[in-house]
């Protein structure tokens, strides 16, 4: 094992310091802020509302639409040009599929629930932070949900399975794999699974097992944020 100690000193299964808050954008039906280390996602939910263009409407149930966007100054290198990149479009799509299993929009035919994601700063794990934030925001908006979705990246750095990789681990000069995972809390089913790098089947299963405990911790934080929001609303 050539990766005996993590670059930022964390234990192999330890997540970065996290902070979650619900109801951060007054204009939105629901919203959330989710910080994971130096990665920060802000999410707003608008809807159910009428869908445009109209041909997208589904007469059987409402549609969930995600819009992932990195702020132009949120990358660790040069300024990112605003506008939809191929990467942002793909992440938006996998986010929709990650959240879809728990969101029940059968009561809202022909309508859309829009989920807007903005990232002011990033250090890997942006889609995971965005999904965890979106799950809080959807619950905060009162959208019918069967379960919560919590998301984290797991992977292997030079033979060691780790949770919640930072950018410098993804770029570690050895065999590395990065596996963003989203999990339904109650069933432990996986609704987001991507991977790049290289990993054996044994390590993959070990990593996915690690994701269970990691997403459980995120779930606790998500529920805490929602409860705090609920309490502050009642107090007002």
């Amino acid at each position, binding site marked *: 094992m050539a990766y005996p100690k993590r670059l930022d000193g964390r234990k192999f299964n330890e997540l970065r310091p996290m902070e979650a808050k619900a109801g951060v*954008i007054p204009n*939105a039906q629901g919203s959330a802020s989710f910080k994971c280390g130096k990665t920060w996602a802000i999410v*707003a939910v608008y809807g159910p509302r009428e869908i445009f263009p109209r041909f997208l409407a589904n007469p059987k149930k409402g549609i969930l639409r995600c819009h992932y966007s990195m702020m132009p100054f949120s990358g660790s290198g*040069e*300024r990112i040009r605003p506008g939809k990149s191929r990467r942002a479009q793909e992440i938006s799509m996998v986010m929709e599929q990650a959240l879809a299993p728990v969101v029940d929009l059968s009561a809202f035919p022909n309508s859309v629930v829009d989920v807007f*994601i*903005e990232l*002011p700063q990033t250090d890997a794990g942006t889609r995971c932070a965005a999904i965890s934030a979106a799950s809080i925001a959807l619950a905060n908006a009162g959208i019918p949900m069967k379960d919560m979705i919590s998301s984290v990246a797991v992977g292997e750095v030079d033979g060691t399975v780790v949770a919640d990789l930072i950018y410098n681990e993804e770029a570690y000069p050895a065999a590395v794999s990065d596996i963003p995972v989203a999990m339904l809390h109650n069933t432990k089913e996986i609704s987001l699974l991507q991977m790049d790098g290289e990993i054996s089947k044994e390590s993959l299963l070990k990593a996915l097992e690690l994701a269970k405990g990691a997403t459980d911790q995120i779930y606790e934080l998500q529920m805490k944020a929602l409860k705090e929001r609920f309490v502050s609303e009642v107090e007002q």
Partner: protein
Amino acid sequence: MIANQETIRTIILEDKRMDGRDLTEYRQPINVDLNISWTAEGSTKVQIGETVVMAGVKLSLEKPYNDTPDEGGIMINAELTPLSSSEYEPGPPGMKAIELARVTDRGIREAKAIDMKKLCVVPGEKAWFVSVDIITINDAGNLFDTAGLAVLAALKTAKYPVVDQETGAINYKEKTNKSLPLTKEPLSVTVYKINGKLLVDPTVEEEKTADARLTVASDMNDIISAMQKGGETPLTIEEISLMVTLAIEKAKFLRGELNKFLQ
């Protein structure tokens, strides 16, 4: 909404507003969070009432323009995100975003708030270019003043990144302690006219019912660096005089608020 707009127009004749404020009173709280983004060279989150705007500065080294070989440059961009209001849609910037960016840009640029010559590294070859992005988080009215405050705060806190002396490459992950050559501090104040009355810091509903507006950027010496009239109702010279006076007075107020957070 329409009923509210009628009410706004009626009660303003008695110097009253829907939220009980005086006509020249800003909403509270006014908050300025500095260095909110580690990836930006300078960044801030500014809140006026329920309106929240972020601004981030990125620096890059580029070839100067041919007509100004010994100067760097600045570019200000604004995104009215669909996250911040149900009225904004995803896609390229619309007219409102373009106007917000350009008016804010002129306020800084025309004041010569940044010494462009000091941004030059090698004349004709290499100079610093400053990009500022304004991102709306919650639009509850008065984006002009909130964005202007955010851009100035972001510029004031920005630090140059480290440049590798051998390769000339920028190491964005490390910052120096050197600030931008900021010589002035212009701030935008927008005065609105509703039913013959003048007011500042409008809510979204007040913006919609307004007959005209005038944005005035002024610095600490009360020198005006940019103006923009909006709305389809014309203004008399007397009204413009009153609006400019009010804008300069409120720019002082906002500068004072900003300084509380810069300490």
